[in-house]
């Protein structure tokens, strides 16, 4: 069990900066997600925590102890690679026993440990089977078991579900999370899949271009994005950005956009220039009488809801509305926005402007 503190962590490969001065804290027992597109630096960050890469500068504290320059074997962290990395010539029991044997653990103790872990993972029945004949799910459980038997302080996982098809992935994600709830071990998990991050994580760090864009709970990041990148990366469909040139002053809770006026969370900083009016699809309503007009381009049925694509003076917009509501292609409708949920952005820098909605979350 461990708390992990990352302070000004930086990694350079020659001229290329993979991770730029990142700082965040992973609390004891948290399921912590490093999320971002490929090449954003999330895997490098994970590898630095595990000791597979040495940082160029910065510190990593594991339970208060600075470990940034230590060898992986001296860190007491288990790394779960793509989960299928098993010894093919050994049976399940021997795959699980291997890390313990190499630690020099007595045989009886190994047996007891494996029985316990096999019980947790529900693989007691297959201990004697060769790993070659196992189903995908069982292979993953065994790979996980091999990390668990060591009782490390923390687990590092690098896209362990990446290679699976959608249905099975969903199932394993639930199982992994349930397992974490039972064991309570600090886990750092890398993924590029925003849904996976939202679904499994207690906290999420969103990275882009070697920089931490935001750090918080899933709901916080979803409701109060710090940047346009985060707003766009999280959520499906992602947040809408209505583009306009405008002005806002502290204390105001209304904004003029394309000849209409809209209620927004009370502003906490002055701004004038190219802005984006950020609103999530489920916070848009179609109303006949609303003055902000839009043409329905398409609708996609999703069972309980539907996604309607609309063309407005401020660009294309997607709304999520009830499946029973009628939205005919070609029709012109009015749009209303849920005022308390709107985030305004500086379009140049992509930064969210401070308001009563997000002031507690944004730093700097």
């Amino acid at each position, binding site marked *: 069990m461990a708390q992990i503190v990352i302070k000004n962590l930086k990694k350079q490969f020659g001229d290329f900066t993979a991770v730029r001065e990142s700082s965040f804290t992973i609390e004891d027992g948290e399921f912590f997600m490093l999320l971002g597109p490929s090449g954003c630096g999330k895997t490098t960050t994970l590898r630095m925590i595990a000791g597979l890469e040495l940082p160029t500068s910065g510190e990593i504290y594991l339970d208060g102890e600075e470990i940034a320059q230590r060898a992986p074997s001296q860190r007491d962290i288990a790394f779960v690679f793509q989960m299928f990395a098993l010894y093919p010539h050994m049976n399940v029991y021997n795959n699980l026993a291997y890390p313990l044997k190499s630690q020099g653990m007595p045989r009886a103790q190994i047996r007891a440990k494996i029985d316990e872990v096999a019980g947790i993972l529900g693989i007691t029945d297959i201990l004697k089977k060769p790993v070659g004949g196992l189903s995908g799910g069982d292979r993953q459980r065994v790979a996980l078991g091999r990390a668990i038997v060591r009782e490390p302080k923390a687990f590092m996982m690098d896209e362990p579900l990446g290679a699976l*098809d*959608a*249905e099975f992935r969903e199932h394993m994600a*639930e199982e992994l*999370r*349930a397992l974490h*709830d039972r064991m309570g071990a600090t886990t750092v998990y890398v993924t590029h*899949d925003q*849904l996976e991050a*939202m*679904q*499994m994580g207690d906290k999420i760090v969103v990275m882009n271009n070697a920089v931490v864009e935001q750090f918080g*709970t*899933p*709901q916080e990041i*979803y*409701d109060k994005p710090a940047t346009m990148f985060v707003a766009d990366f*999280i*959520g*499906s*469909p992602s947040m809408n950005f209505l583009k306009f040139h405008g002005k806002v002053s502290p204390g105001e809770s209304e904004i003029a956009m394309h000849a209409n006026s809209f209620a927004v969370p009370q502003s906490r900083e002055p701004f004038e220039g190219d802005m984006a009016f950020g609103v*999530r*699809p*489920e916070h848009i309503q179609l109303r006949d009488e609303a003055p902000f007009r839009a043409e329905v*381009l*398409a609708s*996609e*049925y*999703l*069972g*309980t809801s539907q*996604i309607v*694509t609309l063309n407005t003076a401020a660009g294309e917009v997607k709304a*999520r509305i009830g*499946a029973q509501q009628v939205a005919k*292609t070609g029709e012109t409708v009015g749009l209303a926005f849920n005022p308390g949920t709107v985030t305004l952005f500086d379009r140049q820098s992509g930064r969210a402007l401070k308001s009563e909605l997000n002031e507690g979350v944004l730093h700097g």
Partner: protein
Amino acid sequence: MAEVSLKNVSKAFGKTQAVSDISMTIEDGAFVVLLGPTGVGKTTTLRLISGLEKLDAGSIHIGGRDVGIETPAQRDVAMVFQQYSLYPHMSVRDNLAFPLRSPILKTPEDVIAQKVQKIAEVLQIPHKLDNKATELSGGEMQRVSIGRALVRDPAIYLMDEPLSSLDAKLRADLRVELKRIHADLGSTLLYVTHDQIEAMTMATHIGVLEEGRLVQYGTPKDIYENPSSIYVASRLGLPRINILPSTLFPGSHKGPSIGLRPENIRQGDGIAATVLRSEHLGDQTRLHLEVEGHAITTLTDPHQDYAAHETIKISPQNPLYFDASGARVV
């Protein structure tokens, strides 16, 4: 464009019955999606229509004509495969023009140029027309291979998971795009996928396959709201429908199993359920519950927070009933 109908179509490979006794009519101008997991017979059905596989039994009519003995070329179908297959040494323009230059079609060059330009615009790749096929990203290559089918004006377009190799964002864009193209061209389209979102969002009609058989055919709404079996009910909807013993809930029941979509569970009164965990997905929050050892998933307000092990009361709304074999009881 034409109506395509299948009558009692069957196909076996050795001992494996890939397609068994499928009958259905794809109406002129329809966008039909065949949905089912891997190995269920979707692709084989598509290949039987295109003529790439031979029928064991049954008949296929395209535009009223029995195509049983015709070659793929004679059937006038355009196929898009899962893996893009472009000519690497040709430009995007020549790849798109290639089907029109076939000796059967003999299209004049000025018509070809016009069609290629139009399709390139629809697929948002006009600036790539003079690139070599190998200089494109994966998403662009797949758009070109879809485009190569779209330049033609066949009786039917047959598409085999054309979006499965693309990333999530591009897939979402192309879903809307394909639907728009279908509406613009008024074409008949048969599309095969295991992705329920693609099926729900694009199809005018969905055909659900189970072990080579067509088990239900209808509009997405129809299939979502009125599934004929547990199998069909489980194909559409995320999170998946909860299938539970009816006896979990008080009152009289029409069948031994009850099917409850996550959105059809009311909180506040009813039976006691233990909260295992909530998942905040942003626009919705999934609540994982347990009742007498049965896992139940429901949806709740995004900002509603329940602690683990808390007990809440739930009751079913608009339940679906199923008999012991999994068939729907109405």
